[in-house]
């Protein structure tokens, strides 16, 4: 009975999406409410399942549901099956919980858009696909959800695709994701060729027999997949542009849930990475690079959503780093993922609320002093802010510090490098987040007369408040008595013996807080105590300029992939016409040409015909003669 429930998690929002899409305009009036109900119902099922899981002992909590045999060819057997275990339930509740809140928020946020029904259909579709991603019991099922969320993300980024730049942003996201998907599909192929199975259980069971080389290959490919979906270096470029979508989308998909799928994938594949240290190290390095990369970009952005997006990239870098630290880090990566889900979604909704009140203005230099006009937004955003920069006892403090600590604890140069990067990232985070808060809510007002900032309606601030509550409390709840670690233990199997502590937790915390304080201080000095120009100053250092241009990520992609690709396409187009088809046409021309030449032998003069006969006779005699000789 219980094992039949997980499918409803997916089926409910999927049904909602189908009803809204197929129903068309007839559902315009009640579609948004229906979709919200479907999402909430899914959350309800999730919550019920959680209670059931809680009632069982830790090792018996996983629920599997086999639906039907999906693909079965030879030894390649994949069931359409679901796996609800301690790891996936975290995601289920995050997705449906935050998702439902954002549904509610969107009812108000999108109320003036006459395509609201379509928006909710996409949102519901996203919820379903994301749930499939975290519930699939094999890599291939995960893959379906994986591309499904990519599609949903594409549709939602391009929701206002009548604007060509938005449509381009959507396409960019899809393609960057596809590059990652390529990694995932290769990983699945290698897994099948090596282990003969692609289900999580099967791979886990056989992983001990496989060669390290093969496992490393799988791991690297999974990492590629994760970098695409989670906007990690070097496939990070799409995330900033993805902010073209409506803000609730940014909150749900590009902050709280979808972009964290990479972390889920790596954590879910812990058995592979644990057996492939090289791949694991690569994960950690990618995470460290990205957390700095995102943070640097974040410092230079004036667009509030892009600043938050850069922050997201950076925070996911932390999670990936955590996941790359092995058994000691998985739980903290997930923890940071969950807390981040709360505070970043909250901040995005806050940003949406600000934009809602500011005629969709996104440039923070045109904000200023908004705290008076939007007190609730300011409060919830502020709580999220405190959480992200890691001020105790807010959520981010618990999760981020743990990752830094574990990074140091891996020891050696690796530990020091990764740990230092994480620490540095914390300082930069503090700086740019403070900058965002100051530019938006503090200081003098810099908006023009047309804007009439006002607080958002209840349907919008309600969810923000709930998320802020999460930002405040979740960290403590998760770490209290190692609750989350113990909960996840059966999935990620943390090593029994603790590694030697290089730095004690206290020292790490103090170090981090000092650095955060420095970051905050610098930001205050620069943005609160001095005037903020309404137009971004031009006379800045090269470093700033590069940071504003996203560390040249687009220029790099353009120079390395797009331009040569376009040149290659043009070249091949020409080659196809002139070389391949040209050869065909040349043969045809040659045939006609030789026909035209040969027909000149037909002079019309009977004597020349007789000459042919004579020559033919001579030739014939000569030939027969030669043959006989």
């Amino acid at each position: 009975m219980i094992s039949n429930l997980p499918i409803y998690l997916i089926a409910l929002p999927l049904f909602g999406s189908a009803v809204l899409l197929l129903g068309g305009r007839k559902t315009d009036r009640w579609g948004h409410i229906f979709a919200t109900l479907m999402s909430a119902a899914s959350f309800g099922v999730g919550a019920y399942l959680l209670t059931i899981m809680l009632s069982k002992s830790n090792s018996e909590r996983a629920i599997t549901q086999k639906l039907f045999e999906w693909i079965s060819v030879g030894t390649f057997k994949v069931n359409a099956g679901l796996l609800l275990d301690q790891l996936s339930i975290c995601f289920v509740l995050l997705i449906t919980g935050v998702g439902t809140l954002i549904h509610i928020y969107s009812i108000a946020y999108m109320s003036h858009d006459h395509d609201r029904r379509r928006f909710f259909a996409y949102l519901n579709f996203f919820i379903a696909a994301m749930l499939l991603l975290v519930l699939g019991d094999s890599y291939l099922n995960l893959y379906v959800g994986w591309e499904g969320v990519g599609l949903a993300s594409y549709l939602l980024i391009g929701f206002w695709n009548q604007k060509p730049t938005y449509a381009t942003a959507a396409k960019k996201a899809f393609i960057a994701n596809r590059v990652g998907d390529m990694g995932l599909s290769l990983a699945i192929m290698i897994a099948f060729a090596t282990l003969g199975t692609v289900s999580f259980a099967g791979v886990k069971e056989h992983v001990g027999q496989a060669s390290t080389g093969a496992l490393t290959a799988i791991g690297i490919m999974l990492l590629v997949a994760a970098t695409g979906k989670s906007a990690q270096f070097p496939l990070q470029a799409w995330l900033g542009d993805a902010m073209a979508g409506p803000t609730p989308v940014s909150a749900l998909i590009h902050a709280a849930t979808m972009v964290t799928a990479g972390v889920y994938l790596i954590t879910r594949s812990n058995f592979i990475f644990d057996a492939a240290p090289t791949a694991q190290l690569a994960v950690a390095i990618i995470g460290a690079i990205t957390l700095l990369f995102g943070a640097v970009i974040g410092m230079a952005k004036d667009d509030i959503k892009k600043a938050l997006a850069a922050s997201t990239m950076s925070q996911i870098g932390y999670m990936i780093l955590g996941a790359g630290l092995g058994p000691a880090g998985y739980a903290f990566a997930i923890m940071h993922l969950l807390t981040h889900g709360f505070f970043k979604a909250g901040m995005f909704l806050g940003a949406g609320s600000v934009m809602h009140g500011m005629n969709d203005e996104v440039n923070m230099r045109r904000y200023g002093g908004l705290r008076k006009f939007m007190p609730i937004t300011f409060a919830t955003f502020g709580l999220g802010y405190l959480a992200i920069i890691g001020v105790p006892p807010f959520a981010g403090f618990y999760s981020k510090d743990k990752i830094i600590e574990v990074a140091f604890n891996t020891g050696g140069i690796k530990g020091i490098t990764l740990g230092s990067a994480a620490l540095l990232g914390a300082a930069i985070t503090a700086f740019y987040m403070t900058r965002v808060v100051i530019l938006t809510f503090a200081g003098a007002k810099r908006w023009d007369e047309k804007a009439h900032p006002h607080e958002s309606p209840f349907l919008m601030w309600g969810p923000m408040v709930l998320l802020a509550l999460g930002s405040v409390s979740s960290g403590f709840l998760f770490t209290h008595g190692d609750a989350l670690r113990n909960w996840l233990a059966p999935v990620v199997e943390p090593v029994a013996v603790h590694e030697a502590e290089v730095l004690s937790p206290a020292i790490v915390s103090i170090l981090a807080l000092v650095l955060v304080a420095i970051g905050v201080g610098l930001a205050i000095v620069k943005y609160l105590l001095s005037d903020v120009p309404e137009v971004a100053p031009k006379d800045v250092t090269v470093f700033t300029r590069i940071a504003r241009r996203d560390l040249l990520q687009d220029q790099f992609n353009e120079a390395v992939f797009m331009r040569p690709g376009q040149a290659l396409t043009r070249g091949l187009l020409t080659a196809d016409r002139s070389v391949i088809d040209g050869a065909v046409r040349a043969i045809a021309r040659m045939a006609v040409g030789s026909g035209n030449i040969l027909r000149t032998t037909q002079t019309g003069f009977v004597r020349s015909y007789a000459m042919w006969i004579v020559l033919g006779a001579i030739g014939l005699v000569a030939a027969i003669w030669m043959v006989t000789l």
Partner: protein
Amino acid sequence: MNWLTMLMLLPLVGAGVVATLPKSNSAIARNAALATTIIVAGATIAMAIQFQRDNVDMQFTESYSWIPTFGIKYAVGVDAIALVLILLSVLLAPIVILAGWNEALGGRWSAKTFYILILVLETMMIGVFAATDVFLFYVFFEAMLVPVYFLIGGYGTGQRSAAAVKFLLYSLFGGLLMLVSIIALYVLSGEQGGHTFDTAALSHLKMSSMTQNLFFLGFFIAFAIKAPVWPFHTWLPDAAAAATPGTSVLLLGVLDKVGTFGMIRYCLTLFPDATKTFTPVILVLAVISIIYGAFLAIGQTDLKRLIAFTSISHFGFITMGIFAMTSQGHSGATLYMFNHGFSTAALFLVAGWMISRRGSSKIADFGGLQRVTPVMAWMFFFAGMSSLALPGLSSFVSEFLVLVGTYTRYPVAAVIGTLGIVMAALYILIPIQRALHGPVMPGNEALSDLNLREKIAIAPVVAVIVGLGFYPSPLLNVINPGAVHTISQAGYSDPLPQIDAKVGK
């Protein structure tokens, strides 16, 4: 009951009926043709239900002496792959007629002639897949060019006659090369115990490896042109761009499958050793097709040509799957043929509707259709997603099977082939962005959305694509035993997973 003969006769009867109808009333001809194709589809499904899944032998066999002088038989029968492709053909036929409701009117000749040609073509499509006598196969293989030639040249647009000629000559040339091999096989069979064209009997001929290689090439080049595999592809974009959408659907959806079908049925079973020899070369060609087709698709400015190039890329996948010689690759390739038929049908039919409404096939002439004609835009989007093998749609299952099946034996080919899935995103999303997104371009404001008839036509296509995406088993279970049988006949078995292989040592 002589199912297959009946299936082949039904469209001919329909064509006869259509021929007696008055020329002036095209609606009657169309209705008669539609009714015929629906009856044929129904009959085929009735036959398919009786197909025994686990029996790898030919079923519904019939055999009559046709030209005893040469040992030629009218011998038909179906195995799994033939059944699947016949199903594809007969299912697409009514859809094509329904979708291209007015296609026949703009042609050089009457609508009546159009439907006669379509029905005759349907007979030949069934015949070419059902033939178990090589000679009979060849007859259908070549003869079916004629109706298509007239369909392209008589009812197409643009450079239709040049395209029709190119199509015909290309195919004919390939066919003639195959004829040499067929003749050679026939003579050889005479030397080894009696002239025959029976496919099964021919597969037991003894040949030196050199002979086998040459014969193999004769067949393979014919099929590579038909499929088409790079570098024999240049006829396809021209033909597809010139033909009416319905004809293009049949051309890309069914006729080209004769090539890949032939590779399995003839190249593999008749010349297993040569297949081994040539596999590396063919895989290279297949991989090139995948990438090359994708690149050129990206560069197209014409909607129809774009779809044609995507098909070249897809045929690369199919070829790769076939020559990977694993059960996954084979089943995947067969399923791919079926799925590609439907996803191309979706693409071409919707593109056809777009083009006929807009009066242009240039992608640049469209823009903002999502706002003007949401349903049509959705359908195009859906077809595009199917073409780029979005998981959950049928083409994903087949594409992934091909890739995974190839990887177990030829990892490099599979890895390069995987690049194709990224490029697929490009070549699908670029036209989607240009045609459906952005502001409404001038000239598109007044386009009408799909009408009920068009919705009815596209609905089964969508249903099949979605249905088989989630639940491919009905088809896979039919295909699998045949696929395993074919590769074991060719002397292959699935590579063991590395861990089991190690244990085996």
